[in-house]
């Protein structure tokens, strides 16, 4: 019988040669007459090991990585790869990075063939939707509320309350919108689900539709994710063919592709974009739950929130709520990124400290130099210095320090980072991506960038820092949405925690 060999098709694996490795394996095994079946999976999320190939044995899967095409000949020199090969990493589940995780949302990712409905069902798929149907809509909403699930896009709003608002609003038409406009640098959890386990998102959205009485769903995917778009569209077509979506299921799903605007990750801007307009932010109220897409009641949730719902329904709210700390219940897919030795997806209950995440799990920096700053929560998240490494990963703990966990991205910088440049970049990014609707964000970001340039040149540093600080207050309290409102987090955290980098005259003197 042919042995199954698993090669990821995740974009991060393809970006480092997974397709070429898969082709080389096919060729080499054919040449040698070794009977194999190559299965393309999602990624386990251990990106330093990609391409990480695995093959089936009686004792479970054995992994090898990172595999280059030149390694394929030695891997299959004597039939199937042997555990004695230098690239063998043993059973992936035993790798500490994976072993220490609590995989709920990502339980299937990297294991199943993302486009196999049989695989999905065999690994517990559709149990959540079946239980929702047996509970009825109201009890389904109640179950999500009881789980304590909060919006994984960053705002952390209780998902169940959002659903209840839509369920309680009468309308002839309602929508479920999945926010897959994952624009934060340092994040890739949404992408991994779409490429590695798309049916879990379909199931989560179908449950949401059933719970609130919506019959149409949109998945808004950023255009920077062509692989995710392809897989998601094929998954929807497969589900339609089986009657899991469409008229019979009373729920339709459609992928819509963004067009390179970061601000469309903001929910009202995303709705405008879906309507075919400029992605400009809407003032709230009205809330999207009352007047959302095309003026109809709309559940708009982050992808990870929706992809977590099937577990909550299938295994019960209590099991999910038992994990976590304080008001942050359940698990969070932490995405380790940037200058980190072991970069990848780490799903765990809330409560790990930042230091544990960066040093113990991430293994410190890739460059081997000391980690100096960690930006958590994307381009609008604060930079944390080492002295705050004891901060627990929790919505409230980060908010208390003028930071945010956002969508769970953790970007590590070593001691070569210039924090004045990072502060400048935050303002420049805001200027590039501002939708232009409100003045603090549109103008403030430009003036802020110019003022940071003066600081970097060493011009009237103290006065200009006071000006930037004042401007940040205006942005924080005067902006319409989180883009202008949170840009002060990276800027002010850099100034507050790394003042030495803003002392340009002294830095220049030291350099000379």
């Amino acid at each position: 019988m042919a042995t199954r060999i698993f090669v990821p098709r995740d974009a991060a694996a393809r970006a480092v040669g997974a397709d070429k490795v898969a082709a080389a394996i096919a060729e080499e095994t054919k040449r040698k007459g070794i009977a194999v079946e190559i299965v393309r999976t999602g990624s386990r999320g251990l990106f330093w090991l990609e391409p990480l190939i695995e093959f089936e044995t009686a004792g479970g899967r054995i992994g090898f990585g990172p595999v280059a095409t030149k390694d394929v000949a030695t891997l299959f020199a004597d039939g199937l790869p042997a555990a004695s090969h230098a690239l063998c990493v043993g059973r992936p589940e035993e790798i500490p990075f994976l072993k220490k995780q609590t995989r709920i949302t990502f339980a299937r990712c990297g294991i199943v063939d993302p486009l196999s409905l049989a695989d999905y069902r065999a690994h517990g798929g559709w149990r959540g939707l079946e239980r929702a149907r047996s509970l009825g809509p109201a009890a389904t909403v109640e179950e999500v509320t009881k789980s304590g699930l909060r919006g994984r896009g960053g705002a952390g709003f209780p998902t169940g309350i959002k659903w209840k608002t839509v369920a309680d609003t009468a309308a002839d038409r309602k929508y479920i919108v999945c926010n897959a406009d994952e624009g934060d640098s340092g994040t890739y959890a949404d992408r991994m689900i779409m490429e590695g386990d798309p049916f879990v998102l379909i199931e989560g959205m179908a449950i949401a539709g059933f719970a609130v009485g919506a019959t149409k769903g949109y998945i808004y995917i950023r255009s920077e994710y062509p692989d995710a778009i392809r897989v998601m569209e094929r998954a929807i077509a497969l589900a339609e063919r089986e009657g899991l979506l469409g008229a019979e299921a009373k729920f339709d799903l459609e992928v819509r592709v963004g067009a390179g605007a970061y601000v469309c990750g903001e929910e009202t801007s995303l709705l405008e974009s879906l309507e075919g307009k400029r992605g400009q932010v809407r003032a709230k109220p009205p809330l999207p739950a009352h007047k959302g897409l095309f003026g109809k009641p709309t559940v708009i949730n982050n992808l990870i929130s929706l992809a977590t719902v099937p577990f909550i329904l299938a295994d019960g709210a209590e099991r999910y709520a038992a994990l976590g700390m304080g008001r942050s219940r359940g698990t969070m897919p932490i995405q380790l990124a940037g200058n980190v030795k072991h970069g990848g997806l780490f799903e765990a209950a809330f409560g790990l400290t930042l230091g544990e995440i960066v040093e113990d799990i991430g293994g410190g920096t890739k460059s081997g130099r000391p980690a100096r700053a960690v930006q958590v929560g994307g381009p609008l998240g604060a930079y944390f210095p080492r002295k705050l490494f004891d901060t627990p990963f929790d919505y409230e703990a980060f908010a208390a320090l003028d930071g945010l966990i956002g969508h769970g991205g953790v970007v590590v910088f070593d001691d070569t980072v210039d924090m004045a440049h990072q502060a400048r970049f935050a303002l420049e990014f805001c200027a590039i991506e501002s939708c232009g609707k409100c003045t603090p964000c549109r103008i403030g970001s430009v003036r802020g960038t110019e003022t940071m340039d003066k600081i970097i040149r060493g011009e009237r540093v103290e006065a200009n820092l006071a000006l930037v600080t004042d401007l940040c207050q205006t942005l924080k309290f005067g902006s319409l949405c989180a883009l202008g409102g949170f840009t002060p987090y990276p800027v002010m955290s850099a100034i507050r925690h790394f003042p030495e980098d803003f002392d340009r005259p002294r830095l220049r003197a030291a350099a000379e």
Partner: protein
Amino acid sequence: MAAWNEAQANDIIGRHAGREGALLPILHDIQAAFGHVPAPAVPVIAHALNLTRAEVHGVVSFYHDFRDKPAGRHVLKLCRAEACQSVNGERLAKQFLDRFGVEWGGTTPDGRLTIEATYCLGLCASGPSAMLDGEVIGRLTKDSIDDIAREVG
């Protein structure tokens, strides 16, 4: 890429007839067909969707993806976001620009390559990263510059 052709544009628009919020899907398909959103497309789309030309122009100019003139034969998007910055992406990006003699958003004089900035490809643990003609590339090094130069001929 096809040259501007109103009949083809009307075909594309027709395929999206009756869709909710059809403008973005139409613009994506127009750009895929013509390599950019040609100016004469704006009134045609506006007429079909019962919008003003200003509204369509407003949408085209809002989104970074839509071009008003064609790009080079190949398009290289280099990530300039924080995760790639942390692994010296900016220094490498500068070397790319210097090698091909272009600024951000610029096209080589022979029209073979356009280099654009992008802010995150979701390959943040495998940076610095890039996308060449829609295909992702991770763990870029100085050697990647030669590889890409060869690939774009």
